[in-house]
Structure formats: C-alpha cells, structure tokens
C-alpha cells in the first residue's frame, strides 16, 4: 500500500463519510421526515456551523470536553456545532418576536463532536429534530410526543418512549443544596438507589426518602404508574402529585388517539441536558447501545439568549437506525438504460421517461 493511501484511510475521530446506498438511504429518510414535519407545520431552520464558545459553555456541562474548539482570526474562541438545539435556541432567542409565536421549526444537519475509540460506533454525527416554540401546556407537550411517535411509525421501527418529569425532580429534591442535587441527579440517572436514598434521607423523614427513591426507580406503563402513585398519596405533596398525574394524563391522551404503542413512565428520565424544566423523554430501540431520540420541555433556555418563552422539542440520532430500515429505503430498482443510434436519440427517449417521473440513463 502506498504511503498516501495509508494517510487517506486515516480520518479524525468524529468524522464520517457516507457513500452510495447508505447516502441515498440517508437522503430519502431525511426527505421523508421533512415532508412529515412540513405536514405538521414544522418548517426548516438552518443553524451556523460554528459560534462563540463562551456563550454556550455554561450549558454544555459534561459534554464540554467533546466539543471541538478553534480560534478565529480575531483571537476569539469558537466552537463547532455539537448540538443543534443549543445553536437554534440562540438564533430563536435573537430573532423571534412575540407576534411570531407559536413557531414550529425542524432541522436535519451534521453535528461535530469528539467521540472516543470506545464510542465511535454511536453514530452521533447527524441530528434531526423539531421544536415547538412559544407554547406552554399539555397540548404542546402532547403535540410533540405525537409527532415523535408518528415519525417512528412512519419509518417503520418499533420503539419505547420513556417519559419522565423534570418538574417532579425539582419539587421532590427542593431541600437539597446544589452539590447534593447534582449528585442526586447522577444517582437517579444511574439508578443508584442507595446513594439517592441517603442523600434524600439527610433532609426528610425515612418514609418520605423511601417513597421518593422508589418513585425515581419506577418504570412501568400508565396503569402501573397510576396504581404506584396512589399508594403514596399521604406522603407526596399536592404539587408533586399533580406533576405525576400530569404524566398519566398525557399518556392517557396518547392512548386515546392510538399513538401510545409502548410508552412507559420512568422518572429516572431526568434529561441529559441541564436546561429541561417540564416533561423529559428518551426513546429506546432494541439492538441500539443508546437512546435514539431525546427531548423535553425547556422553558428557560431561550431566555438565556434574551427572549423568554416556553419551548418543547426533541432531537434524534437517526443514523443509528438507518440500517434497520434499509429494505424500505433501498436504491431505486427501475432505472432504465436507454439505447439509441445516436446520443441525441437516446437522450430524447430518456427525457420522455423522466417527464413521466421515471429514472433513465441515456
């Protein structure tokens, strides 16, 4: 092998090339999604590829170390787009006016972040998503959950939505100080029950600590969840109970509309990003190493960029599931190779096929 070929085969961590069938499939799925988004009134937005790092730094949390940074000619520190939701929030915060609300936007674009050798198969190079901006309340939450479920129905994969509540988290752990809260959130996400229990018990009765720990460890369908929370009626405060019942009501509405194929209430879903305020969810699919989609309500994010308005949305790492729908989104089969005595003759014949919507090569 020549030295130059060896050199070309090496690619920096966090990049990928997509070729032929794979690229075609990716385009078709993206097109189909855009069509679906449009039918729901979600219109595309484009975000810049890089922006100033310091604006986003407080919002990055642990993902900060995976961000690619660079210095521009003026000496400012920039970051490459590692999460479209963040870049979008800034844009929307800057440009939206009260009279534009509510606004429905969608996107499908490349993201750039470092991935370690262990994580490289995670396929997190391309992010697709939708945001409903400027609408609070259950109808907005419901709309976004229904849109999410419709997408997976449309592309034909079986998924489970795990729905949690950041609001309940805030209420149930309000006695904890900032450091303890961080530790508790970590313990909830990692299902470390003993650690969570001892953090809560330091501030409240043992019985309440039992109940809160049990709730954060619970996973089940709506009926199971309703039964579970009824048992704790005497321990939970009204606001806490309401935030939990809100989840059951949402799922019930999804069921009534026939869009709750597999929805589980799972309070250990507290969001992978620090900016969530209401519902939070992740979507799982068999055979994948990580969630394929995640999202929730983040009513305070846009205000960081100068425009205070509620927002709810999700983003997906669709590339993770593209090879599972390869059959449906395969290469076109009916490509006609037109023969002719001259090139002009073949070209004209090919044009006739193209005009009827066919695919032809002259």
């Amino acid at each position, binding site marked *: 092998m020549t030295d130059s070929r060896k050199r070309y085969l090496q690619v920096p961590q966090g990049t990928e090339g997509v070729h032929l069938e794979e690229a075609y499939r990716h385009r078709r799925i993206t097109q189909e999604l855009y069509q679906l988004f449009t039918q729901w009134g979600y219109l595309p937005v484009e975000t810049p590829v890089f922006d100033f790092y310091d604006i986003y730094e407080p919002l990055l949390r642990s993902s900060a170390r995976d961000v690619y940074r660079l210095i521009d000619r003026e000496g400012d520190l920039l970051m490459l787009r590692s999460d479209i939701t963040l870049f979008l929030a800034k844009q929307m915060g800057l440009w939206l006016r009260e009279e534009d609300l509510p606004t429905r936007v969608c996107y499908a674009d490349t993201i750039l972040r470092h991935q370690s050798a262990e994580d490289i198969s995670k396929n997190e190079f391309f992010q697709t998503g939708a945001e409903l901006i400027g609408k609070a309340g259950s109808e907005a939450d419901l709309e976004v959950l229904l849109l999410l479920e419709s997408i997976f129905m449309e592309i034909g994969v079986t998924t489970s939505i795990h729905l949690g509540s950041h609001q309940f988290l805030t209420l149930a752990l309000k006695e904890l100080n900032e450091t303890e809260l961080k530790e508790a959130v970590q313990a909830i996400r990692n299902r470390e029950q003993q650690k969570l229990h001892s953090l809560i018990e330091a501030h409240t009765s043992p019985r309440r600590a039992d109940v809160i720990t049990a709730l954060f*460890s*619970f996973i089940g369908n709506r009926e199971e969840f309703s039964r579970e929370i009824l048992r704790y009626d005497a321990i939970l405060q009204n606001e806490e109970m309401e935030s939990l019942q809100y989840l059951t009501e949402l799922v019930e509405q999804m069921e009534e509309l026939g869009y709750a194929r597999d929805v589980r209430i799972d309070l250990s879903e507290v969001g992978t990003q620090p900016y969530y305020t209401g519902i939070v969810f992740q979507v799982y699919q068999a055979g994948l190493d990580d*969630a394929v989609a995640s999202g929730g309500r983040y009513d305070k994010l846009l205000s960081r960029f100068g425009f205070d308005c509620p927002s709810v949305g999700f983003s997906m790492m669709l590339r993770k599931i593209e090879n599972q729908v390869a059959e449906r989104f395969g290469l076109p089969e009916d490509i006609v190779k037109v023969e002719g005595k001259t090139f002009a003759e073949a070209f004209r014949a090919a044009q006739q096929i193209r005009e009827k919507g066919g695919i032809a090569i002259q």
Partner: protein
Amino acid sequence: MSLNLESTETPLTMALPKGRLFEQVQEYFAEKGFHFKFEKRRLVAHDESGLLKIFLVKNADLPTYVNHGIAGLGISGEDVLYETGLRFFQLMQFDFGSTEMCLAARKSYGKPNTIRTVSVATKFPRFARDYFYSQGVPIQIIKLNGSVELAPILGLAPYIVDLVETGSTLRANNLEVVDTLKKINVHLISNPSYYKLNYRRINRFVAALHSDTGNTVPGSSESGRKYADK
C-alpha cells in the same frame, strides 16, 4: 413460576470475565439455579433455563461489550469499570470477589512525599491519577500491563498501585502495602438502554439472584420495591 417460562423470548445477553472471577460467578449462579458451562474452547454458552446467553470475554474488554450493547449485562469489578469511564447501571453488588486497591512499595519505604512528584507504576492509570489528585499529591504514572511488582524491584518506579487479595505476591517480592486506597467490589452491570428495554425480565433476574432459593420462586420484584414496601 420459574423464569424459564419465558423461553419464547430471546435470552438476556451477559458477558462474564475470564480469569479469577469466572469460577466464583459460575458457582454463585449455580446456587441460585442458573446452570451453565462452556464447551472446550467455546466462548458462548446458554444457561439451562434458557434465560441467559453468556459470552466469555477478557476482563478489560467486558465494559466495551456492554457499552456497545453486544452484551446487555455483565459482571465486572469496580477497578475495570472505573478505568473505562463509561456509564453503566450497577444493578447489584456481589459478596464475592472483592479485593483492595492498594499503594505498595519496598519494605520500610514508607508513604510518599507529598510535595515532590511521585512515580507510580500501575495497570490502573485513571484510578491512580484521580486518587492522588484528590489527595493533592502530584503524580507521574507509568502504565504497565502486568507483573507490576517488578517495577519497584527493578527501579522503574518506587511505588505501585495494584489490586491486593492476599498480599502473598507482594511479600514474595519483598514489597508491602503502604496504604489501602479503596475496597473494590464486583457488580452486575447493565447497558442503560438495554435495561430500559428489558427492565421487567432483568428485575426478575436480579430478584432471583437476591433470593435464597433463586430461580424457582415467584419473582415479582419491580425495581425500587425494596424501598416502596418498607
């Protein structure tokens, strides 16, 4: 109800580490009613109830298999898990296989000077680095892959950080434990996504491991029941 009534479903996948832990795991599982054995040179086996499909992998590779979801579950020591820095659910801590992560040196060498940079040879660079930094001690790490005891003897580094079970290898090489840094336990871990998709069956499996009679009793434990029913 026995867990194997669900044999129509695909088995739960689990990675087990080759080496010192394997036999202890096999024995423990047999006590709980999960019997399996690997045919000669084979690295994949099923337990007799059909609930588990088990892969035998190298200790240090086990977290990688679980991280990628190739094995949904795994059994691993905290030492190995810590080095990867990856996120797993720790579903259960076992009462076998625990060891201690220790700082060792030649006899009468004493504790390290905390002002000068200390050289430490170890198979566990991440753990060693984090531990000494948390103590405010500057450290230079020399990564080795085995026979770490040689480092102080041959003069590669005065200190080593390594797992110590009985201490006999240290004594045989004229070394001693200077400080015990952390107790290292063995855990049942899960890929988070795999757990979320299979939580019912995994919870029942964990309940069977917790119970004295194992895989023969009704196992209706939901996660969190431990706290809910107190």
